């Protein structure tokens, strides 16, 4: 639970939607893009997410962080898409799927040797390939846990799933990624 001062700060922060977008847009868009595997659709959903956040800013009670609240809105939008079957259309089109090799060019340049860079690139592709084999829910939860650093209760709150369900999805996702990385016992 955040304190009153922080809550007021967070609510007033939501008034400046462009500043909020500047802070959270990349994280939300990354989350949506890798959850649904469609870059263009992720952009649309992200913009809808911020529009919805702006319109319903009065409903933000401050009992979670702004990012958790935004992830929750993004989750609902993804669910809506799936329910309305629009998502399947876009998935079938597959024209703007996330390109792992293109993404590899953004690897941190602090890898000392070309061999290390090559290994990092290979592992990046393995993680990406493992995510491709997962369900949307498993991917969402994996990203929230390992890329966004949310704990289980925060993931539960933003996805609306019970903690045990979150754990189950996460377990499958981690197993798949470890298997791709070749680090299973």
């Amino acid at each position, binding site marked *: 639970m955040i304190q009153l001062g922080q809550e007021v700060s967070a609510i007033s922060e939501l008034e400046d939607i*462009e500043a909020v977008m500047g802070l959270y847009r990349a994280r939300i868009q990354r989350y949506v893009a890798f959850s649904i595997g469609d870059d263009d659709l992720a952009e649309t959903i992200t913009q809808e997410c911020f529009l919805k956040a702006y319109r319903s800013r009065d409903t933000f009670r401050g009992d979670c962080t702004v990012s958790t609240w935004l992830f929750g809105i993004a989750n609902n939008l993804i669910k809506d898409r799936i329910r309305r079957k629009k998502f399947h259309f876009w998935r079938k089109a597959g024209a703007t799927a996330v390109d792992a090799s293109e993404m590899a060019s953004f690897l941190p340049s602090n890898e000392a040797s070309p061999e290390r860079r090559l290994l*990092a690139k290979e592992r*990046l592709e393995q993680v990406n390939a493992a995510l491709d084999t997962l369900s949307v829910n498993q991917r969402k939860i994996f990203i929230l846990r390992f890329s966004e650093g949310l704990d289980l209760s925060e993931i539960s709150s933003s996805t609306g799933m019970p903690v045990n369900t979150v*754990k189950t999805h996460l377990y499958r996702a981690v197993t798949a*990624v470890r298997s791709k*990385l070749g680090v299973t*016992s």
Partner: protein
Amino acid sequence: MIDAASGHLTDEDFTDLLIDSSGNPGSVSHLAQCSHCQSEQRIFLSAVEDFSTTSLAWTRSKIATSPLVIKKKSFLQSLWLPVGLAFATVALLAVVLPAWHDGHVPINPAPGVAVTSDDSASVIAQDNQLLESVSIALSTEDNIPLSEYHLPPRQHGGANGRMELRNR
């Protein structure tokens, strides 16, 4: 729980530990002293961290190259749509209504110009009179101006006469 055969964490325990680092105390203590399990954990975490860093950088690059279309602006712009439509309607009515009005209602005379049926009849009568006098003047056979120059009467030489004059 430790795998009896390998002496390391089982897959289940390892995954539990990755999901929730404050999991089974036995797993936590084994990890603290087992270099093999630490190495496995490092591989997983570094791969995931690279994925997170790279995917965020990639997304930022996408955002940087895509136009910043903020729906909020579109929403605000949409508020102008009814206003614009209202203006367009008023402008259309301003054009259409007078045209329609012209077709159905006689034009009122401009203020200060009193056009009556008597005046228009007298004006028409004056105009007719003027036109008649012009017509009379045009139809009157006056002397040809050339006669004032006392030229000899014209000989009817026809084409030959003209040829003779030209050959001179």
